[in-house]
């Protein structure tokens, strides 16, 4: 019961999703939308699970006074402050201008944007430290990157040549490589999906 049932569910739901693609009848269309909605609902519960695990870890760190527990207090404070501001006003909290949305605008967005802009610094340091022309392949990657980047640098007469080269790279080899990559990934992913559906691939379920 504990071992067999999950894998029968996987095979049944997998084959159903496969078969319904070919059957345009209305009932199957409705079943398709209905199952996808279920998965979103289950995802919501999984989120609750994750939140519980995070709170449990933070609280245990604070109770045992592990060095740096002060930051866990701040995380818990931030978490519960948002939960209170998010739940008390009910659904209205999602409306623009509510306290919950202000928190989102003045804490979440600036930090997220700053994190992303860190990438500009990291790309510069990767360019200097990690970006070595060790092998022929790395050299090709290097030269191609520089040609594309030179489009932004005014080179006077040279710009036209560089522009033509960049245009050629973007039009022809670029598309060919992406197609080969997509076909490869496509077949690989299809094979893995088949293994899961037929219960051959079981690691994601773990064994005990």
């Amino acid at each position, binding site marked *: 019961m504990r071992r067999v049932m999950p894998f029968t569910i996987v095979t049944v739901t997998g084959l159903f999703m496969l078969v319904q693609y070919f059957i345009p009848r209305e009932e199957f269309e409705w079943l398709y939308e209905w199952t996808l909605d279920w998965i979103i609902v289950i995802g919501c519960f999984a989120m609750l699970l994750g939140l519980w695990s995070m709170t449990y870890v933070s609280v245990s760190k604070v109770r045992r006074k592990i060095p740096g527990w002060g930051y866990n207090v701040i995380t818990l404070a931030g978490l519960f402050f948002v939960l209170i501001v998010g739940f008390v006003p009910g659904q209205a909290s999602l409306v623009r201008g509510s306290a919950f949305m202000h928190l989102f605008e003045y804490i979440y967005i600036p*930090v997220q944007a700053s994190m992303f802009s860190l990438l500009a610094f990291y790309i510069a340091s990767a360019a200097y430290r990690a970006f070595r022309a060790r092998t022929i392949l790395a050299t090709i990657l290097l030269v191609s990157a520089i040609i594309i980047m030179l489009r932004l640098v005014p080179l006077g007469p040279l710009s036209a040549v560089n522009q033509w080269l960049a245009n050629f790279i973007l039009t022809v080899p670029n598309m060919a490589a992406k197609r080969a990559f997509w076909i*490869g990934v496509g077949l690989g992913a299809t094979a893995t999906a088949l293994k899961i559906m037929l219960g051959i691939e079981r690691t994601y379920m773990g064994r005990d």
Partner: protein
Amino acid sequence: MHPSPDIGIWIGALLTLGIFSFLYGDNPYYKFCEALFVGVSAGHWFVTLFWTVFVAKLIRNVGIGLNTFITEGFSAGLSDYLHWSYIFGGVLGFLMLLRLFPKIGWISRWSLAFVVGTTSGYFFINYLVSNGLRQIEKSILSLGAEFWFGNLILVVGTFCGLIYFFFSKEHKGAFGGLARVGIWFLMITFGASFGYTVMSRMSLLIGRMDYLFGTWLGMIG
């Protein structure tokens, strides 16, 4: 230089500087911003999911289903399966929560099985059609058309790329040569996308600079 009066902008700017301080090194100012962000983001994510999914989909649908049962009697209620059927989604979701109790934790595997089964069926078709068939359809190019040179390289490039991703044969001799050309094409493409990403990351930094020097301190613009 006229800094903005809005307290929210000040909080955002101070947090931005906190995150940038990580560039210098892991410091308490950064750790504070990180911890606050971790808490706020997890809370935000859960509240949004709670209202938009848990309430909007589960509670609302089950509510409609129930009152059709109450108002229009049992048979009409049954036919309105569109709504009350969401209860199964709720039940499976609840089973997921049982993971917390080791004794009956195994039951949560059923909902996990439902999620993984459905998405694997969806992925099987999706990847086969959009990555497989559609890409093949687009890669078949005529070599007689006016832009035949470009097409020739496109076909050769895709062909060699596929050879590189071939796992049943050692990359040696002529076969190895073709695979080498394939990885060359891949490396040119990766170089091009690296070049592009530098531009988009720099524009993100420019956006932050506008926020700090413009919106916050009002020095430029």
